[in-house]
């Protein structure tokens, strides 16, 4: 039996061991030594994991195991920035958003993809690859050809007596007014005016429809004149709230929220800047929609006819501090393969379908889907993808996030009535001018 002194001594020993163990980290003491294992890569995206069956096939073919982590988009961008600034490992492959390409390209936070993948060969099959290129380097590979499209509830339009779909902004606005005056719905247009990225994107798409660009090649604003496309687009959007085309409550509605609670519920008749793929993945899904088979894609109405669509693709790249860049590159090549992307989009059954996936970034992937007839509005979307254009033809500037913040906070304020459109435009332009001057 232990006496009191022995107990005290043994307690001390245990306490000291615990303290030392804490300092060193419990895991190293607790975990048994592992045998050498095949390569495991960490993939972090703002999307749910790929179908287990497909990941298993990838592992079987390459010996690479994928550890998938899903984070929301904003947190993901913060973590990428924090890890890169701290010069530490975050993931082997992670999100490269088109809007961050300028910033990431300048900071060299991601490895140049052309070192690992034949990007020249890819470019013909991947129209949006240019949006991911900065200073001659490919920062990421687009895996989802999301682009902005106009969606229309044809049933509500028909109820208002509209038989021919609009092709110009003027016709489109007149049709929305008809839907409202005939009381088919109280607020026919969905514009997400919440101060968030979705509002900036909506304005870019509308500016494109009005026939213009946001910034010139040096980053100076092209929207200061009242006759410019950007100014007209902002005025058109804010006027839509003031004239009752858009619900007043939309000043706090984000893009996906408006799509889910207004368009999908038949409370709005149209979204001018919607996500490609939403018809198949949201509006035609009975569980989430009360307007099944009522919503269709519409070539974005422009000044004198259909306008080009704004590219809004999601990409994937390899952070500079990746532990297994070669394995990550193998995964990215497989992940962005045309046939696999067609499978993600539902070409070969639900077991191979990736929940929430919109549209392959490769024309060959879309061709497979179209051939199988498994994509709703596939012909229309494929045509739009061919003419989809980058928001910034010269590539997103490195200071884009700060500019975008100025765009959405000021447009939100104009819609909320706390500032005029003119003041909002001046504030946005002032930010672009200051940032492009390097101040």
């Amino acid at each position, binding site marked *: 039996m232990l006496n009191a002194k022995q107990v005290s001594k043994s307690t001390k020993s245990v*306490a000291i061991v615990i303290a030392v163990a804490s300092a060193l980290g419990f895991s190293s003491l607790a975990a048994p030594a592992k045998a050498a294992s095949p390569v495991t890569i960490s993939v972090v995206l703002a999307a749910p994991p790929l179908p287990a069956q497909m990941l298993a096939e990838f592992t079987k073919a390459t010996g690479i195991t994928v550890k998938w982590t899903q984070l929301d988009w904003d947190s993901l961008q913060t973590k990428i920035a924090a890890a890169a600034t701290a010069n530490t490992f975050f993931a082997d492959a992670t999100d490269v958003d088109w809007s961050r390409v300028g910033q990431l390209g*300048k900071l060299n936070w991601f490895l140049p993809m052309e070192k690992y993948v034949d990007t020249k060969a890819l470019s013909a099959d991947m129209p949006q690859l240019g949006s991911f290129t900065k200073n001659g380097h490919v920062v990421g590979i687009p895996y989802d050809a999301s682009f902005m499209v106009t969606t229309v509830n044809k049933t509500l339009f028909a109820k208002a007596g509209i038989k021919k779909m609009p092709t110009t902004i003027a016709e489109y606005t007149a049709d929305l007014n008809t839907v409202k005056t005939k009381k088919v719905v109280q607020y026919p247009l969905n514009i997400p005016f*919440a101060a*968030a990225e979705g509002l900036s994107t909506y304005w870019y798409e509308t500016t494109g429809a009005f026939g213009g660009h946001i910034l010139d090649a040096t980053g100076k604003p092209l929207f200061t004149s009242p006759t410019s496309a950007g100014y007209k687009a902002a005025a058109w959007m804010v006027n839509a709230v003031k004239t009752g085309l858009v619900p007043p409550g939309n000043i*706090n509605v984000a893009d996906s929220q408006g799509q889910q609670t207004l368009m999908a519920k038949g409370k709005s008749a149209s979204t001018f800047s919607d996500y490609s793929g939403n018809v198949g993945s949201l509006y035609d899904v009975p569980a989430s929609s009360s307007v099944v088979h009522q919503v269709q894609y519409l070539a974005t109405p422009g000044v004198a006819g259909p306008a080009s669509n704004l590219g809004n693709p999601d990409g994937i790249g390899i952070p500079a501090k990746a532990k297994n860049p070669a394995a990550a590159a193998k995964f990215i090549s497989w992940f962005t393969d045309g046939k696999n992307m067609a499978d993600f989009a539902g070409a070969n059954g639900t077991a191979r379908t990736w929940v929430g996936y919109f549209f392959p970034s490769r024309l060959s992937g879309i061709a497979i889907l179209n051939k199988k007839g498994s994509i709703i509005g596939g012909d229309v979307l494929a045509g739009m993808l061919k003419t989809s254009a980058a928001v910034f033809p010269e590539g997103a500037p490195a200071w884009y996030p700060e500019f975008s913040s100025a765009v*959405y906070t000021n447009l*939100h304020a104009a819609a*909320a009535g706390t500032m005029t459109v003119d003041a909002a435009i001046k504030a946005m332009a002032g930010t672009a001018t200051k940032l492009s001057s390097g101040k």
Partner: protein
Amino acid sequence: MKKKKLDLLPYALISPLIIFIICLALTPAVYTTIAAFFKVQPLNPPTRFSGLDNFRDIIHNSAVISSLGNTFLYILIGVTLSTVLGIYIAVVMQRSFKGRSILIAILILPWALPGVVEGILWTGIWDANTGVLNSVLKSLHLITHYQVFLGQNRLLTILAIEIVQVWQITPLSAILILAVLQNIPDDLYEAATIDGSNARKSFRHITLPLIRPGIAIAVVQAIIATLNVFDQPYILNGAASTANSLAMETYAVSFQNLNFGQGYALSLLITIFTLLISVVVAKFIYKKVEY
């Protein structure tokens, strides 16, 4: 004289905590303090000493000034409401009754929920297009059209958002005050009753003075929470200037604009501000009580 043997046990027991504090609190605090005086901009290298430039830039940043005003309103509304409600709940919970433990468990739930979840939950209440509140008010014929609670009027927006945070932080205030309340001897109330005191007078002259230590801690924790409010305004009102807080501005400056030097400076100012207010509160509200 017999030399006293050094007893290592107490040091061993507290060493994990000391290591934890040094690694996760002191080191970042020291780093932040030093880095606040440097230009740390990955887009504009190299990192260089800049004296008070970061602080000067912050003072001239209209978004920071606007968020400072908003944060002051968050503190004012949040601390006042959570403290008053905390005292009320604690007094109600002071006496034992059937189901008291279950009620306390239910009350603590909002405190246990992440701010993001609360923001999403309350979106369904405040939403101007499909919100529950509008629906209820309309069905009671109190309004004819759905109202916009968030985003148009600054004070209304901040009040609506702060109510969500008050819902979250009040349970902790109540528990902190209740803990002190339960230490007050019943004899004091019995003696007061014999002397002719009614419930209101007993609350004013016995309860309130004796729970001051609990109120002080509750107020300090409410100040810290409201001064750092982020999730609720971010979810409910986006980045709009009508309700953005200092913490949101710090995030934007640091991770959106990648101006870490200014971010450090802003964080340092928030920390100093928190310490100053806490010291003032402790000095004026906290009072050591003996029964």
